[in-house]
């Protein structure tokens, strides 16, 4: 296997919730719970899961916008987590991020031009004139024309704002692009434009990409490899085709089963969704999914399943993996 570009080892992130009078936190919520992941150069890794599963926190940790409370992140062979602001600053350009809310991720008092120029001012060491030329070049690459550049975020459409965000992210010529729900705030007719643009850019620049999304169809289309998260843990990971066509973890199966496809088979079908997402403040013992799992057994409450191999690179964290559960494997 190729040397990993981004390596995540046993990363956890706990957030304090509420405080006692003594200043001690009342509860700790483990948003990310012992995650191991790696990203190879040029690869696209999809990160899927529902709200509160920790996928955005994990993306922020990869971006060094947040720090793990346990575990370590390595980038290009060197430590990436636990660095000082100064150490980080010079290397930030190598991992860049595209944000979920395209309008809010642009400073409302800056023009599109100024937004795209910012990383160039910080990293490139170019002079004013060279920066202006480079901004125009970047704008053309993301399909913005010159008259868009002098506008403020609210004068642009959501799709145009996301193009500005993409231009800003690729300005520093990063090795890794982290896209946190890059199309979920956009109109349906615009989503395909932005996805195509991202794929084009990834191809042209040979980037590795982490694609965080709750939209399974989009991830299936974009990602080479997919990791499914539930309550802070990765429950299944593998090549996208295998994860989507032959899901092994009961949660992945439930998730895929509840996506409404615009197909006649979906009509008035009863979803096989059981129960509710437990509170992240007190997740179930053992396997977090056991309270909603149709094939849970008593050991699931005691033992935390490790992510075991299904195929060569396909892994799932389920104790009943490979057992005959008498249940048809469902797929999307």
């Amino acid at each position, binding site marked *: 296997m190729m040397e990993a570009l981004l390596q995540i080892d046993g990363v956890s992130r706990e957030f304090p919730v509420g405080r006692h009078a003594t200043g001690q936190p009342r509860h700790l919520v483990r948003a990310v719970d012992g995650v191991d992941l790696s990203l190879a150069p040029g690869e696209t890794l999809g990160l899927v899961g529902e709200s509160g599963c920790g996928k955005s926190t994990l993306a*922020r940790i990869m*971006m060094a*916008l947040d720090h793990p409370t346990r575990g370590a992140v390595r980038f290009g062979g060197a430590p990436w987590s636990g660095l000082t*602001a100064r150490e980080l*600053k*010079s290397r*930030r*350009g190598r991992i*860049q*991020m595209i*944000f*979920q*809310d395209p309008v*809010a*991720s*642009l*400073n*409302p*008092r*800056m023009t599109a031009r100024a937004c795209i120029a*910012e*990383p160039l001012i*910080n*990293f490139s060491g170019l002079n004013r004139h060279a920066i202006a030329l480079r901004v125009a070049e970047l704008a053309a690459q993301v*399909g*913005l*024309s010159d*008259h868009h550049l*002098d*506008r*403020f975020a*609210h*004068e642009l459409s959501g799709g145009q704002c996301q193009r500005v*965000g993409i231009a*800003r*992210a690729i*300005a*520093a010529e990063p090795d890794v692009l982290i896209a946190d729900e890059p199309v979920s705030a956009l109109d349906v007719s615009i989503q395909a*434009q932005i996805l195509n643009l991202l794929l084009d850019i990834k191809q042209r620049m040979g980037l590795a990409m982490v694609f965080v999304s709750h939209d399974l169809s989009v991830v299936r289309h974009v990602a080479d490899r997919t990791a499914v998260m539930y309550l802070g843990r990765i429950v299944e990971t593998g090549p996208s085709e295998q994860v989507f066509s032959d899901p092994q973890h009961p949660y992945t199966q439930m998730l895929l089963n509840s996506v409404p496809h615009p197909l006649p088979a979906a009509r008035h079908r009863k979803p096989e969704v059981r129960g509710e997402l437990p509170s992240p403040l007190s997740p179930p013992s053992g396997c977090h999914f056991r309270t909603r799992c149709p094939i849970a057994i008593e050991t699931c409450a005691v033992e935390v399943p490790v992510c075991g191999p299904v195929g060569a690179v396909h892994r799932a964290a389920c104790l009943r993996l490979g057992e005959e559960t008498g249940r048809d494997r469902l797929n999307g």
Partner: protein
Amino acid sequence: MALTETETKIQAHGTRSRRRNPTLESLAQAAREPWTIICVLILLGFLAMAVLSPMLAGDPLAINPAYRLKPPSLEMIWGTDHLGRDVFARAMNGARMSLTVGVAVALLSAIPGVAIGIFAAMNRTGGALVMRVIDAMMAIPAVLLAIALAALLQPGLLTLIIAISIPEIPRMVRLVRSVVLSVREQPYVDAAVSVGTGGFALVRRHILPNTIAPVIVQATYAAASAIIASAVLSFLGVGTPPDVPSWGGMMADARKFFQFYPMLMVYPGALLSLLVLVTNVLGDRLSDALDPRKIARSI
């Protein structure tokens, strides 16, 4: 690219051709409203009063015991006070002090307030310490502080301004801190950090420009309350020395003769009320015009 062509085509259907800074646009719109125009004109009137008082009116300090408490005449249109001084000249000249105090307090509370507020919001441990000091400052009553300062330092305009500014600073710090804390959570700040902007550049480019609008509004209110506070302190005799004409001092002098010569109280009082009123109205207008929701709607 075919895409941009189509977009240009669609753009051509747009009606707006000129696009400007949204904040300026919103301010320009507010400046066209009649109430704003009236208030600005009145404020300019006060400014003219302050600047031109030596030319428009006589000497505010000249004492003429023979002409005490005279009714209005052609020469002295608002009459004279108990020392025979020209009330009109004193009232005109009093605008100087009120405006100076208003502007100075606005600046002296805004500048340190913004600096301390940003520090308190951006620095976790230092910030907590600063906020406890600020809380303690909030407990000091402005008038008592002014009286104490006047006793300690030389009474005068500067002492007055400092005394009024100090209790205004905590209010400004709290405002700035809360605004910065919410600005800091905005995705565009994360985005800026991601592209390597940090420290001072982050504050200057992203935090400050998005914090300044409420500060301007608060500074306007601080100016209005400072004008009243200065009048109160002058009225109590702990403000400016008696030889500097001030509306508060004039009203204090007029107190003894109020039953017989009520106009001596009414002239400075009315000017004071009018100035405070227009300052507050302008503050409200600014607050509306700088409201982000309003700005978003105006375009």
